[in-house]
């Protein structure tokens, strides 16, 4: 990837076990990227698997998110916001895409289905139940592997914007 030498010079952080459990639960997740002209793009994220070492995330984005994927192929930079829709706990993770596999594995599809069910269970708690939420469901998903470089608490309130240091 053309951006890798620049972006990957940054030190990786690691996600601790508690945060990993949060990221891998049924929390709403959205990603921002930008192109080389700094035009941002947002898309929903449909599942997250934290690497055992805690330093990388494998996230799933819609296969139709062509601008997101193009941005990742050129600039590599990404921010992903994870939010519990019931209690509003929110964490933003920023980093660099280090792999764009291009197609989903069977394990990715299993992750997508389990995440979708968990998300819709959470959303139902705030009053939106299937089939009203059917319009959210993507045509398909593709994986993106992210090197974790910054983590922020984004929960509304006085702690918003606080750096999360990660596992030593």
């Amino acid at each position, binding site marked *: 990837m053309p951006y890798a030498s620049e972006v990957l010079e940054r030190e990786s952080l690691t996600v601790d076990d508690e945060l990993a459990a949060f990221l891998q639960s049924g929390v709403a997740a*959205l*990603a*921002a*990227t*930008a192109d080389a002209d*700094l*035009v*941002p*793009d*947002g*898309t*929903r994220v449909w599942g997250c698997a934290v690497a055992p070492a805690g330093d990388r995330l494998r996230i799933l984005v*819609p296969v*139709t998110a062509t601008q997101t994927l193009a941005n990742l192929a050129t*600039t590599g*930079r*990404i*921010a*992903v*916001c994870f*939010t519990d829709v019931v209690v*509003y706990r*929110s964490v*933003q993770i*920023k980093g660099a895409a280090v792999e764009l596999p291009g197609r989903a594995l069977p394990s990715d599809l299993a992750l997508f289905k389990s995440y979708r069910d968990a998300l819709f269970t959470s959303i139902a708690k705030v009053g*939106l139940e299937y089939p*009203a*939420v*059917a*319009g*959210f*469901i*993507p*045509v398909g998903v593709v994986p993106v592997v992210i090197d974790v470089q910054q983590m922020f608490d*984004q929960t*509304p*309130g006085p702690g*918003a*914007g606080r750096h999360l240091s990660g596992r030593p």
Partner: protein
Amino acid sequence: MVPLRSIEACFQGAIPAVIATCSADGEPNITHLSQVYLIDDEHVGVSNQFFTKTANNLADNPVASILVVEPSGCESYQLLVHYERRDTDGPLYHEARHSVEAIAALTGMAGVFEVRAVDVFRVLNCARVPNELRPDP
């Protein structure tokens, strides 16, 4: 471009929107919004409850992407917008304050969600996000 008037339900505040911005050095950022307001055929307003990062990004790079959701079927629409101005008074500002205070009261976030201003954006494009039910863009 999808006419904004055809998706007015997206601007009722039923489902939170999100805004993606980018810093001058290329770092993206994304955060939730309580509500996006339809001002006219070409402009939307956003209640400014932003974290510093979003406000700083808009000051340096006025282009943003906003995702809004139509509440009856959860179809999403992506707005490419250009930041124009900040209103700290006027009808839209007061509407936003009352609306966000109501949302905060309903969600137990009174005193946390606070509207400081309404940021007004010109909409450059509006496109429906494909989904499983309607896969074509």
